[in-house]
């Protein structure tokens, strides 16, 4: 079956020795080792930038947030107890920093520039993605954030609960509501004869 062939376990798993190395780095940061902080910065810079950019849509804001996040890591490294992965702890800080920055603002999932580019791309997949993107824009920030944590960072539900500091059931509920809302948007576009009709849903047949 096509579904089985596309899905594999542990696609996003990182080697265990990498986790051990990062935990050791963080201990050195807690002891005031600037070289260890620089190493951690290089490891996380691109990932944190992309993560914060997709929420703020601003290069300047994302750039500032990366520095703010790693400064908090420097100041709070001694509070890391090893209950989670280092990456989960750091993205927890990133999540809270980004949410504070965005409080009161509307999150847009993707820039208009990309949408303009998509308008000239006539493949069915690109058009479907464009509708999915429209649907994502319409979701509340917490649901958008959850989707990013699932598919952009590839975190497990337990890790997302740690990052968002909420129960696992809340994470699952957010994804459930996001799915329902997206399904409604795509259904409406399909009934209007829009390109999302191309989404392969066996229930709609």
């Amino acid at each position, binding site marked *: 079956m096509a579904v089985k062939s596309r899905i594999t376990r542990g696609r996003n798993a990182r080697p265990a020795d990498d986790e051990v190395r990062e935990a050791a780095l963080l201990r050195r940061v807690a002891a005031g080792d600037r070289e260890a902080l620089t190493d951690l910065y290089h490891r996380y810079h691109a990932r944190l930038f992309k993560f914060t950019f997709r929420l703020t849509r601003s290069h300047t804001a994302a750039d500032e947030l990366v520095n703010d996040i790693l400064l908090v890591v420097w100041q709070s490294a001694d509070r890391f107890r090893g209950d989670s992965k280092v990456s989960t702890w750091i993205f927890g800080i990133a999540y809270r920093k980004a949410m504070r920055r965005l409080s009161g603002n509307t999150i847009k999932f993707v820039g208009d520039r990309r949408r303009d580019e998509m308008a000239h791309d006539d493949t069915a997949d690109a058009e479907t993605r464009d509708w999915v*993107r429209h649907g994502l824009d319409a979701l509340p920030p917490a649901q958008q954030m959850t989707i990013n944590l699932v598919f952009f960072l590839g975190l497990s539900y337990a890790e997302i609960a740690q990052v968002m500091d909420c129960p696992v059931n809340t994470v699952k509920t957010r994804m459930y509501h996001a799915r329902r809302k997206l399904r409604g948007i795509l259904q409406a576009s399909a009934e209007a004869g829009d390109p999302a009709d191309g989404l392969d849903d066996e229930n709609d047949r």
Partner: protein
Amino acid sequence: MKTIDETRTHDDYRELLPWYVNGTLSTAEHETVARHVEHCAECRGDINLFEQLRETVLHSDAIPIVPPASPDRLLRAVDRSTARRRAVRRTAAISGVAATLLVTFVAGLLLSGRGTPDPAQYRTLTSEPAISAMDYVMEVRFEPGVPAEDRDRLLQALAPGEIHARPEEGTYRFALGRPGTSLADIQDAGSRMEALPEIRSARIVAVQLPVREQP
């Protein structure tokens, strides 16, 4: 005895599908979901949606051009933060030594019987008390759902003095300020508070000067 597959409902499997698609389920969960999906058209429809979502999320990843990594700015911020902390510690240490010396000196005067000044020879140079310090009023907002006992515990650690609370809004205000403590130190403390998962925001909302007594 029932197997895991028999105890789980369709909704139980359905809520695991995002993590089935991103590949982070445990081996046992992955296998049971795979068995269910094989016979459930509704779940296969959801999987298609989640795969579209994943493609959309990963595809838009191409948009930001990540600037070159340059830790210099971070290290400068670290230097400023470290210097502020050292200054606070140094001031606290000097204040402690000065207080000890003063207490020793006054105690010595009293014990030697020379501690009581003659009112006729004693003159007050000013009628106003000196300004001791400026207080910064910090407002802390907690995340919804943080239990009252956790709030109290954190507030006791953060704010030793009087706290003005609006617990129903999760908002607490208190004054922070000691001689030698700068605005940057207080902002630094606010940023450390904001790093805590229980606290949504910690901001300076007012500055208050000590009230002078009228002559």
